[in-house]
């Protein structure tokens, strides 16, 4: 049974690898401050095992330019960083190719680094696939996105409201349960009414937080008595 399953899965995998391509993942956009470092992540999905000949290449296309230049290449187990272009001495390979991670780190950002970075990964024999791009936006001051502050304020206030209501009902429930169990254990059914109020009064004096709950319980008792 197990061997049949293993055989089917191997056959399926070999079939699948011929109909699906390699899929490269990067972020969509990266926001960073001038002078800071940014890590551009790149990963891929492939049906094949990670080959020792896996390659990662990064390309940079400035905003407004038509063509891009190659700034990084990893192949044959060696990482080649930019030593002539705009990122010389600023680029560092921080990925782990055996874990399918081809991320790079760019240090000391400047406004001229705005642009699109394209990552292309190849996992032989799985070499057919689209590359993926990440846009880098460099800011002097990271802007507050529209609606973040609004949503935060509304969320916090409504959350506090729900929390206060929940605590209030919890307190009432706990007080009612404690009073009920005390009166039942000590005096039974006969002196329940009187002892109940006395217990409630003692509790009210002892714990000012439960005063409100006790007061509403008293009100209910009074209305019950009035009806009687």
């Amino acid at each position: 049974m197990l061997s049949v399953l293993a055989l089917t899965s191997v056959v399926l995998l070999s079939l699948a690898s011929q109909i699906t391509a390699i899929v490269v993942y990067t972020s969509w956009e990266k926001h960073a401050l001038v002078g800071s470092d940014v890590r551009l992540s790149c990963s891929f999905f492939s049906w094949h095992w990670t080959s020792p000949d896996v390659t990662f290449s990064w390309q940079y296309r400035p905003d407004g330019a038509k063509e891009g230049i190659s700034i990084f290449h990893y192949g044959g187990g060696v990482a080649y960083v930019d030593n002539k272009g705009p990122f010389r001495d600023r680029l560092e390979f921080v990925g782990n190719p055996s874990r399918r991670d081809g991320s790079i780190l760019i240090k000391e950002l400047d406004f001229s680094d705005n642009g699109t970075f394209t990552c292309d990964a190849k996992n032989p024999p799985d070499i057919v696939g689209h590359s993926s791009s990440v846009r880098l936006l460099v800011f002097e001051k990271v802007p507050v996105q529209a609606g973040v502050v609004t949503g935060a304020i509304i969320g916090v206030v409504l959350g506090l409201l729900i929390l206060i209501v929940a605590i209030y009902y919890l307190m009432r429930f706990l007080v009612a349960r404690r009073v009920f169990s005390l009166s039942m254990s000590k005096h039974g059914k006969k002196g329940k009414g009187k002892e109940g109020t006395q217990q409630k009064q003692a509790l009210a004096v002892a714990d000012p937080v439960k005063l409100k709950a006790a007061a509403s319980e008293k009100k209910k008792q009074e209305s019950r008595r009035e009806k009687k």
Partner: protein
Amino acid sequence: MLAILLATIVLHLTDLIILFISTCANAWRTDGVRNYHLWYDCTQKNGEADCSGTSDADWLQAVQALMVLATIFCLISFIFFLCQLFTLVKGGRFFFTAVFQVLASLFVMSGAIIYTVMSPEVKNDNDAYGYAFVLAWLAFPLTLISGFIYIVLRKKE
């Protein structure tokens, strides 16, 4: 008794409507052909409105949040009022209704004050405050009065 109840309900509904209009209408300031704040920046061009989003300023987002919260709290207090009208014991006070209404008035006050203090200076002669801004300032005393009425109001059979 019925007259007081009706008047209170009318006042509360008026508050609710004023708050809704003030929050949703995009007319806190106008510049003749251009009306902007609280949500969009729209310019009238040959009968068409050319709109873009307002700046992402922190204070503007705070005003947006406070106005929305004031409207929500006024609505909650109205629902609470209708609930408490039927479930409250005789002689009881509309405590929760009053609390929410007063909170709504505080939020409207904060929003209107923040907007008044932080809104950009008058640029030309046509620049003026819009009707939504006036309604927001009007909503503050009305909701406060409504809240105080609920504090003193007692339920009678």
